């Protein structure tokens, strides 16, 4: 037998999660370590190409793009977290309701899921954002209201499965109340699923936040959001300032990818059917 000193798959997965988490935390709290003085207008260092001093270059007002990108990502992560959190809560409540409150409720909720899946996400976001007059409220409510359906389906299926499991039936026979069963049997079983669902929902939330802000219907132009940075950069593309769009977009891509990776890794670790693959 070959002795293997390198990490096994489980350890590797765990390290992926830890490192990814640290990176995201660093970006989330970037306000504490970046030099916020760099984003003030400084006309002496306008349109500087990327260098060691300005990693991502500077824009037409001499603002450091690295600092702007970090602050923008931090804002995007916050908005995305709120949106994903709300969406998960809705999915949890509706999924549980569909599985436990009888046939009529089930049919109504599955009709509701179809309803929300039938409008393209982005169009629904534009509509909701328009109704609420844009800004934080429009974006966050929009994300909450549009991202729950697929997770709600998962939750519903899970609850259905647990409800008909042997040990739950035994528990019921022993005279435990519905509430007790929900708290002690269904909820613990559901928690990992919901956690993973939350992590996998987040990439969509943050991408849609950036998209709607990019279109001009999201956060206001004064915010340092990543969508704003990218839509501003469009005006300067034809003058060859490629770094204005390239690095912020790439950073967004990396953040989304890291979240996706953490979600996938968590699933590998927690989900018993996949843990030993």
């Amino acid at each position, binding site marked *: 037998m070959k002795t293997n000193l390198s990490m096994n798959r489980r350890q590797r997965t765990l390290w992926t999660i830890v490192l990814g988490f640290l990176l995201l935390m660093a970006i989330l709290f970037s306000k504490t370590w970046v030099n916020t003085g760099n984003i003030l207008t400084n006309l002496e260092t306008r349109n500087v190409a990327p260098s060691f001093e300005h990693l991502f270059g500077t824009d037409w007002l001499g603002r450091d793009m690295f600092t702007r990108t970090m602050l923008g990502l931090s804002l995007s992560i916050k908005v995305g977290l709120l949106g994903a959190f709300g969406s998960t809560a809705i999915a949890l409540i509706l999924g549980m309701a569909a599985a436990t409150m009888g046939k009529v409720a089930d049919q109504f909720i599955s009709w509701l899921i179809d309803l929300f899946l*039938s409008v393209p996400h982005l169009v629904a976001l534009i509509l909701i954002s*328009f*109704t609420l*007059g844009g800004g934080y409220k429009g974006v966050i409510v929009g994300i909450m209201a549009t991202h729950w359906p697929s997770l709600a389906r998962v939750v519903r299926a899970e609850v259905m499965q647990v409800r008909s499991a042997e040990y739950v039936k035994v528990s019921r026979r022993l005279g435990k109340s519905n509430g007790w069963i929900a708290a002690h049997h269904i909820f613990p079983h559901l928690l990992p699923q919901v956690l993973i669902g939350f992590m996998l929902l987040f*990439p969509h939330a943050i991408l849609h936040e950036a998209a709607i802000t990019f279109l001009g*219907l999201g956060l206001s132009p004064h915010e340092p959001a990543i969508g704003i940075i*990218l839509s501003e950069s469009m005006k300067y593309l034809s003058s060859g300032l490629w770094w204005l*769009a*390239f690095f912020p977009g790439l950073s967004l891509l990396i953040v989304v990818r890291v979240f996706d990776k953490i979600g996938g890794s968590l699933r590998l670790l927690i989900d018993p059917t996949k843990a030993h693959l």
Partner: protein
Amino acid sequence: MMKIGRFLLFKMIRIITLVVAICFISFLLVKNSPIDPIQAYIGADMLKVSPEQRGQIAAYWGLNEPVMTQFLNWGRAVIQGDLGTSMIYRRPVIDVIGERFVNSIVLMIAAWLFSGVFGFILGVVAAMKRNTWVDRFIQWYCYTLASTPTFWVGLLMLMIFAVSLGWFPVGLGVPIGVLTEDVTILDKIRHLVLPAVTLSIVGVANVALHTREKLIDVLSSDYVLFARARGERGLTLFWRHGLRNVALPAITLQFAAFSELFGGAVLAEQVFSYPGLGQATVEAGLRGDVPLLLGLVIFSTVFVFVGNLLADMIYEFVDPRTREGRI
């Protein structure tokens, strides 16, 4: 034939209830928006309009009536095909949508076909070369694409192919300064390439990953094992036993992805200033054009339903296994 009829009838009823609900919800949403429809209609001339005239306009549009009555009036008009007049374009909404739809559908069909074919091929290659570097590379590529913002890909395309290399125009649907009748098909295609490629690149991931999974399932089946034992390998094996089993799920998936296609088109059209439905949606939202926005919401919903219906029908009737299982 009876079965198809019943299936369609059931689907139609469901679709109609959903469309009515969508209409109602979106109507309520825009009614409650902070944008004053009269102000949005009049625009900069607001100071010239007296309160009495305002009242007259409100009465003329029925804005003083209860929301339910307004909805019924609007709904009656919509059923007759009258979606109102767009405030930005000062033309009937139905005409604006029709004209934009022609532009968008070309873009979306091009992207849909290309991403479908390309994604399918990638998925097949990955599955046939499972656990090699080719497979790992394709998987990495697909997962990365799935987390890439569509509009950023569009910006990159613009920077590389339009600004640096100058192969394609920077934006719009037709060349600037050319009369409508002088625009050639070639011009239109040149303006179409970059948005279509952007949409396709992003759309590949889903189909590729799904096809890979499916084909791996097929390849581990007994009949493939038997075929291998007889000496079939590579392309012949795939052609005889793989293709038919994985093509159908891939096509179904492509039809069911109409919603994402539309969302992607909104972003791609905005980046390239391509005059399609997506750009009209953004304009309507930004400038408070309520009739156009409502029309577009309804239209995009119907568009998604058509895709889903086609996907369901393929699933239900084309696949010989489900077809025979139910007779």
